[in-house]
């Protein structure tokens, strides 16, 4: 796989504060879905801002598609490639109607009106908000606003979208809706996704899970690799996915299940295989 974002030995601190991030090494590949987990203050939002040149590393380097974020000339090229969606949908929408807001990014890229129109329509269709294109922002629900915010980034045709806790202010139904949209963009348009989240059930959807604690990467890998390290995660007070938790309890009671199960279907299959086809459920 071709790498898109290369975070190499990054340390970060604000002017004269303590280090917020230390020794971060992380590679995001093209079209990859990465979830970034960690408690409040673990530095995950800071890390996401380093990826689109909103912040510069104190030591080390961040390169996006071969462009170093420290290079001021490339700042806007980098932000075109890596879009950022924040937590509160209300605070990131600039214009009063849906299509005007989606047009904001392409307008900043100084595209022609026809091109902007085309991109706005396409991106609204891709998040399923096209029928709301003329409506006022304040009439939309939280989830719809968040989809408009995502659409505003998609219209800039990025290679990667960073979503900083995009669902934490939404009700469960909107949360699912927004997540489905994110997955759809990843699958259909091959946009790389960095999903910063608190929720385990969101994190396991990703190709790669990165766990952070106190400004360091604790562990990274496929969900299976990460959730095999139950002791490490427990030591740093992460809640495990329910299925992983249950597997662990069964393992502790001398039940011969493999480690790193995070998916219900997989759990049932493994359970069936150890009870040897007998009716157990």
């Amino acid at each position: 796989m071709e790498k898109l974002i290369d975070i190499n030995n990054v340390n970060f601190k604000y002017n004269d504060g303590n280090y917020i991030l230390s020794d971060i090494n992380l590679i995001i590949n093209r079209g990859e879905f990465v979830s970034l987990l960690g408690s409040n203050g673990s530095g995950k939002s800071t890390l996401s801002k380093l990826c689109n040149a909103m912040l510069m590393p104190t030591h080390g380097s961040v390169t996006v598609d071969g462009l170093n974020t420290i290079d001021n000339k490339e700042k806007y090229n980098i932000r075109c490639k890596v879009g950022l969606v924040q937590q509160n949908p209300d605070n990131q929408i600039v214009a009063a109607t849906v299509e005007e807001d989606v047009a904001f990014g392409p307008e900043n890229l100084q595209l022609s009106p026809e091109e902007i129109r085309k991109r706005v329509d396409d991106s609204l269709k891709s998040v399923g908000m096209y029928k709301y294109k003329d409506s006022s922002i304040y009439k939309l629900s939280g989830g719809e606003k968040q989809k408009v915010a995502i659409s505003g980034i998609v219209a800039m045709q990025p290679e990667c979208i960073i979503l900083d806790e995009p669902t934490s202010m939404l009700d469960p139904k909107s949360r699912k809706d927004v997540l489905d949209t994110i997955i759809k963009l990843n699958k259909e348009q091959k946009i790389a996704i960095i999903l910063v989240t608190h929720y385990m059930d969101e994190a396991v959807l990703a190709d790669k899970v990165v766990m952070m604690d106190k400004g360091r990467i604790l562990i990274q890998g496929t969900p299976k690799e990460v959730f095999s390290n139950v002791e490490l995660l427990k030591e740093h007070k992460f809640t495990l996915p329910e299925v992983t938790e249950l597997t662990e309890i069964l393992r502790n009671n001398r039940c011969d299940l493999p480690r790193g199960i995070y998916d219900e279907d997989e759990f049932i299959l493994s359970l069936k295989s150890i009870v040897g086809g007998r009716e157990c459920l």
Partner: protein
Amino acid sequence: MIRDLAVGQYFPANSVLHRTDARVKILNLLITIIFIFYTMNYFSLFIALIYVFLMMYLSNIPMKLYMKNFKIILFFTIFTGLLNLFDDRGKVIFEFGFLKITDAGINNSIFVCSRVTSLVILASIFTFTTLPTDLTDAVEKLLKPFAFININISEIAMMMTIAIRFIPTLIEEVEKIINAQKSRGADFENKNLFVKIRALMSIVVPLLESSFKRAYDLATAMESRCYRGAENRTRMRILKFKMIDLFSIFLTLIFIFGVVYCNMKFPATVK
């Protein structure tokens, strides 16, 4: 709910007025308002009212939205109408004690009420039919000639866009804060001025605090969407002068001519 206030909100519909260029609409609005206050007799007032009703019809906006706006200013209209009833000049029609109602007073009152109402309706038509971004674009274009006094008009237009965008959000925020403070026992109904001011502070401080947070987030969002100053942008919607705009200007000219003609032809009923 305060949120449902119709003032200053765009209402999407497909009408002649929605399609008219925002620059033309602003100029039309300013000119017609001036001439509505220039109506001197019932003939010219009649023409002004016909113009207002025609615009309401052309706007394709449901009547109940106008009624909503109308209700808000109803008290104000009645109040000014009542004040104008009492006039020393003219023939006395009613008299209770020292209060005299004269025919001149009644005329005054009718004129003032219809002028104020027309003004509010025309302004509502304008905001209902004009997208906020079109409005700010138009202001930007119309202010272009004043660029020499060294103000950045594009930036001002961007600020206006954002301000308009955040009105409903902040209103919602105020409602939330009021409820939160009430549930902590804040006293908003007290008649005492000092208590009132103290209660107000308990709204203003959290509101300011959260506004700073919003501003910070918004700046991050705008920067990460490649915003680099209001001048270095293109626009999706370009204001274009069309046949509809000529039609709209033509209507306004007829209206002006009608008002001026009637004012000259017939004797003035109000000063």
